[in-house]
Structures are given as structure tokens and as C-alpha cells.
């Protein structure tokens, strides 16, 4: 039981922790980010508990498809926020990287849509966290022996998941500032594409979208999604061992839309850069 609990909690925490790690690295040096990200984590934990408490009502809503719609809505909201942040970074990121120590940068950085990242963190923590809460609640409510070992296992899983997120964050910080934001922006684009693909899967499950072909490929023998590397890739780039056609479509469309807009804005000179040149 100890190991089982540790693994389940680790898996769920890992996904949220990787998202937080990328977001933290992507907002390095921005004033007020701690508040937004910390607030996002706090709201996410609270949200996780609420979702778990109302799991029954959510599942019963929308003719039994409430859970699917709820998950899809959360995922697409996160995709929207991540996309918005990328496009903003495409416009201003270059200036931030160029004048990272200048006062003028603080102004540009201050207007950055940190709320978007805070919301993403909250959604990620809330979605993954609700499963942890349900699982632990089940153990606590059940008459299974060894509740203590499960609790300890859960804590070990939590710490291990958070540690991997921290490793990713510290690893990203070793990238020179000049390139850091370009790297994190593209990582965020991939994160968004993966979430869009997952959201599409929930809509197929709810019978709202057509699958457009199930199991386009099956790579579960090579890299299972329940393995740790599979799980990490699932979060970071949206790896799916058995994707349906519509998932690939959503993945590609998200990459294309956010990627194109970010690139287009990146080519334009932002007002901050023009002002800096004029001064």
C-alpha cells in the first residue's frame, strides 16, 4: 500500500509540478511572480478539495458527462491562458531578455500577464490535486488497514513529484537569460498543445467530438504513459501512447495557432523597444 500510494500521488503531483517549474522559469525575475504562482498553487489546492467533495455532483451533471466536460473546460481554459502568455512574450520577450537589468524593463515586466500564469498553475494543481484528494479520501474512509503507511506514501510521492518540478526549474535556470524566455515560451506552447489534445480526448469520451480514428498508433509497448518517463513526456510535450485522430488535430492546431501568433509578434518591434531606441 505504501508504494502504491506513493506512486499514485507522485504521478499526479508530477504533472502539476512540471507545469509550475516551467512557469516559474518562464517568469524569472518578474516582480510579483511569487505572489501569483503561490496564489495559484493555494487556489489550486483549495479547488482540488472542492472538486473532490463535489465529485459526485460533477459526475452526475450533464447526463453523466459532467466530469468530461469539466475536465475539458479546465484544460481549454489553461490552453487559452498559456497561448495568451506566449503571444505576449513574443511581443515583449526579446526586450526583456535584452535589457534584463535595466529599469525600463521593470515597467515592461510589470505589465506582463502574470495572472495568466497564476491561473494556469491553479488549474493544473486543482485538476491533478483533486485525484490525489479522492484517492486519499478513499483510503481514509475505507476500512483498509495501513492508512498510516498510505499517508506516509502519499507524502513521499508529493515530495518526490515536487522535487522533479524543482529539478526542471533549476535546470532551466542554467540557460543563459538571453535564451531562457525563448526556451520557456516554446515549452509552454508544447504544454498547451498537449493540454488541447487531452481536452479533445475528454470531449470524445463525452461523445461530443468524433474520434476521427482511434489508436492512430499504439506505442504503449515502447513507452507506456503510466511509466515515469512516459508521464513526464505526457505533461511536457503531450505524449500519448494511443492517440485518436482528433487529438492529433487539436495538438497540431494549437501548435500552429499559438506558434504562428507568437512568431508574428516576435518579428514586430514592440512599443517598449522603439521607446528605448528613441531615448
Amino acid at each position, binding site marked *: 500500500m505504501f508504494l502504491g500510494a506513493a506512486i*499514485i500521488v507522485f504521478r499526479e503531483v508530477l504533472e502539476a509540478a512540471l507545469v509550475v517549474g516551467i512557469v516559474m522559469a518562464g517568469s524569472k525575475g518578474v516582480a510579483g511572480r511569487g505572489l501569483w504562482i503561490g496564489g495559484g498553487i493555494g487556489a489550486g489546492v483549495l479547488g482540488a478539495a472542492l472538486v473532490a467533495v463535489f465529485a459526485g455532483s460533477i459526475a452526475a451533471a450533464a447526463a*453523466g458527462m459532467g466530469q468530461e466536460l469539466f*475536465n475539458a473546460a479546465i484544460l481549454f481554459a489553461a490552453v487559452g491562458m498559456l497561448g495568451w502568455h506566449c503571444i505576449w512574450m513574443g511581443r515583449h520577450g526579446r526586450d526583456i531578455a535584452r535589457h534584463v537589468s535595466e529599469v525600463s524593463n521593470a515597467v515592461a515586466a510589470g505589465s506582463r500577464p502574470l495572472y495568466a500564469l497564476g491561473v494556469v498553475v491553479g488549474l493544473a494543481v486543482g485538476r491533478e490535486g483533486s485525484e490525489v484528494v479522492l484517492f486519499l*479520501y*478513499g483510503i481514509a474512509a475505507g476500512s483498509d488497514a495501513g492508512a498510516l503507511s498510505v499517508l506516509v506514501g502519499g507524502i513521499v510521492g508529493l515530495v518526490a513529484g515536487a522535487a522533479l518540478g524543482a529539478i526542471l526549474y533549476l535546470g532551466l535556470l542554467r540557460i543563459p537569460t538571453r535564451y531562457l524566455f525563448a526556451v520557456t515560451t516554446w515549452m509552454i506552447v508544447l504544454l498547451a498543445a498537449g493540454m488541447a489534445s487531452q481536452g479533445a480526448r475528454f470531449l470524445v469520451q463525452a461523445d461530443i467530438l468524433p474520434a476521427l480514428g482511434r489508436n492512430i498508433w499504439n506505442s504503449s509497448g515502447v513507452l507506456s504513459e503510466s511509466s515515469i518517463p512516459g508521464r513526464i513526456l505526457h505533461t511536457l510535450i503531450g505524449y500519448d501512447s494511443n492517440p485518436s485522430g482528433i487529438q492529433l488535430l487539436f495538438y497540431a492546431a494549437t501548435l500552429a495557432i499559438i506558434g504562428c501568433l507568437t512568431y508574428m509578434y516576435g518579428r514586430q518591434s514592440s512599443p517598449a523597444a522603439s521607446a528605448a531606441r528613441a531615448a
Partner: protein
Amino acid sequence: MEIRWVSRIAVAVAIGLGLAAALAQPGGADDGNVAVTIKDHKFDPEMIEIPSGAQVKLLVTNADETPEEFESQALGIEKVIPGGQKAEIKIGPLSAGTYEFVGEFHEDSAKGKIVAK
């Protein structure tokens, strides 16, 4: 300026989703229901045979007091079923083959598979 772009993207995405929904084929023929019970963190039955190409509905009853998550990567399904509740899960149409599923919260004991023939 940026807000305009965001709204444009939102509109584009909405149009895309609308198109996809319009292209969606109505659910197809329902080829029957299969009742599955979760009891003592085990599925009953543990093996479900369905004809390939058929679309069936799993009527899953969680007879345990604790929540369980019906999960199958092969089927692309992830659904939490609170203790004492029922859930409907649409499966298929599947090509011939074996599709495993688990109860994620008790993966050691809650294992099953769907065999499409």
C-alpha cells in the same frame, strides 16, 4: 491591441470547434450495454468480449464505498466513479484486439480487459 488578438483567436478556435462538432457523426448504433461492477477493488467481469466494430456502453457500478478511477490508455478513457455511484462509459467502435483497463486507485487488484473479436 492584444485583447483584439485574443478575441480573434477565441473566435478562430470557436469556429474550429464548431466545424468539428458539425462534422461529428451522431453516436452510431448502440450495440447494447454491458454491466460491470467494482467490488472489493476488483472488476466483475474482468474480461468483456464485444464484437469488433460494435459500439457498446459499459454501465459501471462502483459497489465499494471508496472512489475509483476507470482508466484505459488503449481506450482513451479516464473517469472517476465515486463510491456507491454508477457511470456510463461508451466504448468503440474498436478494431479487433485486446484493450486493457484498470482502476487507477487500486491498480494492483482492479484490472480488466475488453476483447474485441
